[in-house]
C-alpha cells in the first residue's frame, strides 16, 4: 500500500459521517441511535458526525426490517451516497427481520437488499453497542479480516 493510499485510509477511518435511515423499525432503535449521538456519548471523539443528506455521508445506519414500501426508498438513498460507502444494520430486525420475519409486507433484514458491513443486534440496541459496532467496523477497515479459506 502506497503512502497516499495509507493517508486516505487513515482519513476514512478517522472521519466516518453517518446518515440515519429508518427502513421500517418500530422507532426503538432510532431513539437509541439518536441517543448515541448526544453529548453524553460524544461520538465526535471518533470523528462521527450526523449528516442530513446522503451525499455527505459515508455510513448508512439503517434500522428495522425492510418493508416492501420502503425498499425502493432505501435503495435510492443508498444509490445517492458517494463511494466508498458502508451500511450498518442496527438492531435485531435490521439484521434478520426479527419478530417481523415472514410477514406479507416485510422483505427481511437489510442484507436482503444492500451489502451490509456490520451487524449490531439488540432489541433495542443500546448506544454502547452502536458505538462498539461502529468502532469495530472502522477497525476492520484498518486491518481487513483475512478471507476465510475455502471449504
Amino acid at each position, binding site marked *: 500500500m502506497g503512502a497516499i493510499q495509507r*493517508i*486516505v485510509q*487513515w*482519513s*476514512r477511518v*478517522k*472521519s466516518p459521517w453517518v446518515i440515519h435511515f429508518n427502513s421500517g423499525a418500530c422507532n426503538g432503535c432510532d431513539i437509541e441511535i439518536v441517543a448515541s449521538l448526544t*453529548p*453524553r456519548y*460524544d461520538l*465526535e*471523539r471518533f*470523528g462521527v458526525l*450526523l*449528516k*442530513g*443528506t446522503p*451525499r*455527505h455521508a*459515508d455510513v448508512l445506519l439503517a434500522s428495522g426490517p425492510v418493508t416492501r414500501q420502503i425498499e425502493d426508498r432505501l435503495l435510492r438513498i443508498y444509490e*445517492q451516497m*458517494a*463511494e*466508498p460507502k458502508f451500511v450498518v444494520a442496527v438492531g435485531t430486525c435490521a439484521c434478520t427481520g426479527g419478530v417481523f420475519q415472514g410477514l406479507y409486507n416485510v422483505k427481511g433484514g437489510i442484507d436482503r437488499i444492500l451489502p451490509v458491513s456490520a451487524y449490531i443486534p439488540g432489541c433495542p440496541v443500546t448506544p454502547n453497542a452502536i458505538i462498539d459496532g461502529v468502532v469495530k467496523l472502522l477497525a476492520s477497515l484498518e486491518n481487513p479480516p483475512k478471507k476465510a479459506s475455502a471449504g
Partner: protein
Amino acid sequence: MGTALIQILVFPGLLFLAVAGLAGEFIDRRLYARFQNRMGPPWFQPLADFIKLLSKEELVPDGADRGLFRLMPVFALTAVVTAFFYIPLWGTSALHAFSGDAIVVLYLLTIPTFTYFLGGYTSKSVYALLGSARTLTQLYAYEVPLFLAVLGPCLLAGTWSLSELTLFFQARPWALAANAAGFVIALIALLGKLEKVPFDIPEAETEIVGGAFTEYSGRFLAWFRLSFDIEMITGASLLAAVFLPFGLGLGFAAGFGLYLVKILFLIALIALIRSLVARLRIDQMIGFCWKVLAPVAFLQVIVNLVLKGIFFS
C-alpha cells in the same frame, strides 16, 4: 515573480490560510464540545475530514449545470484567499494595499455567499433551492449592518484604506473605544456570514437537510468547507484590523504572536456564542438585523461623524 508566487501559494497565501483555517475549525469545534461538557474531536479531525472528502467520489446531479456546479467551490476559495491579501495582519500595512481596499475586502467577502447561492441553485434539489434562497435572504439582512459597522471607523480616520486606518488608530488608540458598538455589530454580522448558530438558517440540518450544499459531495464539498474555514480566518482578521489594531509595530515575531492571539480570541467568542444560543427563524433574524443592528450601526456612524467634527477637523 518568484516571491509573488510564494506569497500567493505558501505564506501568507493558500497553504498558510489552509492550515490556519483547519486549525481554526478544530479550535471552534473543540471549544464548542468543551462548553457542552464533552471531549470533542481530536486535533487532526478537520484534516481527516478534508482528506477523506478529497478522496471520495464526486457526484453531479442530473439537470445541474456541470460547469457552474464544479466552478463555484473554486470561486469561493479564491475570493476568500484574495481578500486576505488586503488586510493588515501583524504590521501596519497589508501585503497589497491601495486607497479603497476596505471596500474591496468587503466586496470579496460577499462573493462566497453568492457562490453558495449559485451552487445550491444549480443543484436542482428542493432542499438546496430552499437553502440558497435563505442564504441570499440572510445576506440582505447582515450585509448592511456589517458595511455600516466598518464604515464608522473609516469615516473617523477619513480613509478607505485598511492600512491607513490601522496607522490612524495606532497613533490614537483611545479612538478605538468609540467603536465598541461597531465591533459587536460586526461580530454578529460575521456570524451570519459564516452561517454559524444562531444564524445557521441556510444549512439548518434539522429542517432542510444540508441547505445549499445538499447535493455537493467529495472534492467540491471539501473546497466549500475549506472556504468556510478560511472565511472565518479572513473575517476574524478583518475585525482584528478594523476594531483591534493595537500592538502592530512590534516587528514580525511578536506581531505575529499578537495577531494569532487576536484571531484566537475572536474564534473563541464565536464558539461561545454558538454554544449559548439556539437557531433563529429567518424572519426573526431579518427583523433583528434591520430593527436592532442597522439602527445601532447608523448611530455608531453618527457618533463617529460627531467625534470627527470635534477632534479631527
